[in-house]
């Protein structure tokens, strides 16, 4: 799983929508809704339905999705990859849509921009001392009794590597 997670991230930053349609074969999806039944993000984001995204891509409505905020809801839990009976991987379809959206210069929703900025600034999706709630309120890790999170040892090297896997386009779009 860890391997997949790391491989998946590197893989997906450079994965185009064209590749996704060709290699992930969304056309094999027969709409069993398993992904939407168990999706972590769908439980909190009302209009986020992985099966629907796959169906829209399959039917040729990718542009609609690329210009929509809905594709940014995925929380990368990878349950849909694990349980899809047709090996479609809605997660990777969503990643390809995000990449396409960035490639077209579209700015992602605020929460995602904040996360990307934080990665380039401190090496984490948020300030390690704080946890951000759904309403963007900062809660102290210490107050919750959590230990301090380790930071990248060599931050410059880390930054270089992040840019290497295709972060630079995102950096350009969100103007860091």
């Amino acid at each position, binding site marked *: 799983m860890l391997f997949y997670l790391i491989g998946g991230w590197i893989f997906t930053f450079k994965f185009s929508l064209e590749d996704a349609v060709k290699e992930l074969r969304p056309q094999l999806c*027969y*709409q*069993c*809704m*398993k*992904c*939407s*039944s*168990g999706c972590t993000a*769908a*439980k909190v984001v009302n209009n986020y*339905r992985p*099966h629907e995204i796959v169906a829209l891509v399959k039917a040729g409505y990718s542009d609609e999705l690329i210009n929509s905020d809905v594709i940014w809801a995925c929380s990368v839990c990878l*349950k849909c990859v694990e*349980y899809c*009976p*047709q*090996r479609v991987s809605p997660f990777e379809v969503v990643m390809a849509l995000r990449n396409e959206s960035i490639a077209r210069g579209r700015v992602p929703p605020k929460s995602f921009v904040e996360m990307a900025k934080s990665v380039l600034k401190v090496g984490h999706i948020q300030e390690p001392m704080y946890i951000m709630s759904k309403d963007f309120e900062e809660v102290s890790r210490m107050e919750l009794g959590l230990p301090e999170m380790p930071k990248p040892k060599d931050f410059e090297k880390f930054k270089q590597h992040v840019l290497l896997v295709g972060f630079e386009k995102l950096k350009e779009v969100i103007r860091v």
Partner: protein
Amino acid sequence: MVEDEEVRIGVYICHCGLNIASVVDVKKAAEEVSKVPNVVVAKDYQFMCSQPGQNIIIEDIKQHRLNRVVVAACSPRMHEPTFQKAVERGGLNPYLFEMANIREHCSWVHEKEKVAATEKAIKLVKAAIAKARLLKPLKREKVNVIPRALVIGGGIAGIRASLDIANAGFEVHLVETRPSIGGNMARLDKTFPTLDCSQCILTPLMVEVSRHPNVTLHTYTDVVNIDGSVGNFKVKLLKKPRYVDESKCTGCGTCITKCPWTAPSEFELGLGKRKAIYFEFPQAVPLIPVIDPEHCMYFQKGTCRACEKFCPTKAIDFNQKPEEIELEVGAIILATGYSLYDVAKAMPEYGYRKYKDVITGLELERLVSATGPTKGHIVRPSDGKEPKKVAIILCVGSRDEKHLRFCCRFGCVAGIKHAYYIVSHIPDAEVYICYRDIRTFGKGYEEFYERIRNYENIKFIRGSPMEILQDADGSLYFDVFDANTNRIVTLRPDLVVLETGIVPHPTFKEVAKILKCAVGPDGFALELHPKLRPTETSVDGVFLAGAVQGPKDIPDTVAQAGAAASSVIALMSKGYVETIPYVSSINEDLCSGCGICQPLCAYDAISLVKKEDGKQVAKVDIGKCKGCGVCAAACPSGAAQQLGFNDEQILAMVRTLTR
């Protein structure tokens, strides 16, 4: 006779309408090949396979005294038998015929290169002529068929097939690995779509097959070995010891009442208990108990013998040993059936075996059955309470690239039937059926679906849950996206029923290995042709009935069992089979007995024998040989030759093609 004669060949080039003639210049081809030595006559005709086309060959054989015939047309798989019969009608041995494929191998693939295609066609025909010159008459051997059949598996498929063969007047040996026949159908309470009682329609057949004068039942028996080929199979069976003398036992059941030891019941799928001496189920056929040594105190600790003490007929025999039975049969029917996919191991996300209240559809059948562990009351296994909210999940493991790729073909209607079980036993219960697609393809199935849709308390949810979870208080819950209402629904059912996919019964794997019959990618037996020969296997004389070939409901299983039985009856009524003549033949003078060919033979047709002078040579069983030619290719001395395709003939073709 033919060898001394001058070789006189007739060559016929078919137009196949425009299939060949629109690409290949057939007139030119006929003219070219007419110049080849030994060719007496060369003609082209619009449809060689038609009646007038065949008549040209027959008349020419007589008029020109032909002793070899070459037809250049389609694939030999299509019309070789047609022309062989025509040649035979003309008075020649049918194997003095050779076919050149100038359609699939030429005109169809060279549509845009007409000149080159014509040249290629001429070469192919010339090569066929070169081989035809060397053809020798071949003979089909007749092998007698022993009028006795073996049926492996005593479920509904095996029972039906046995009865059909027995009713036609032939002897049948029915083998079942469990102590009773009946199979999975005996576990069912009702059968869809008519909801008739499964036992009520099955038990009369079980009794009939056990009493039929032509049927010998071998229960609690395994197949150990099968040798031989169509018409003459030698079968070795191993009868496991019941520790009960079948000739003395009256089936009174006193031993079972007196036995103090219990174990989980296999028939009840672990939901109920049985004694250490037990009937498979109350209506078991034969009604003779069996002792399970693993749970019997006498076998474990050497004391007890309660059953022996109380048996009124002194039928208990602790010294019974496994018994070997040898049989000779002419044909075999495989009816080993299915077992459920192991979702406990393969799909832990559904929590089967982890949560007590997640059960399979087959387990629900046992809960509903009047003879089941709860005497027909639907209760939750965890606390014995009546479930008021039940979720039925379809396609568990089926239609899944990571589990079983195929549709189980009865899960949908079984799930609908199970919903009916719940509401008919517990009228105020709510049932949720989580489905992907509802497939009600059988006769009367859609009407049954419609009937069940009418129930207000049976709700259909179009969506599959991803996982089943447990709350702190032990109750089960899961989320499922319902596409019909576009909502994520959270269900908190008292009982979850999984309609699991199915796999071939484990015994099939062993039998397939013994028989060397082809197995498909899903592990089910591979039929010879999916549409036209659905009951035959790659081994002649071995037929398929029921779920051994693939998922099947009861109507389809019974239909196929009848079809398999009729194939066996046809074989036995005729009394003999004709072997294909393209078999391997060993030149014993050349054979060094090295044995290279023997393990290579995929059909187990080659054995090494000692001749009278002590020399070891390979011997081919022509009943088993399929003429694949592997032994001929592997033989280092050229002793193994495939009749009709020997080295001399093949090399003559190669020389012509490369000239």
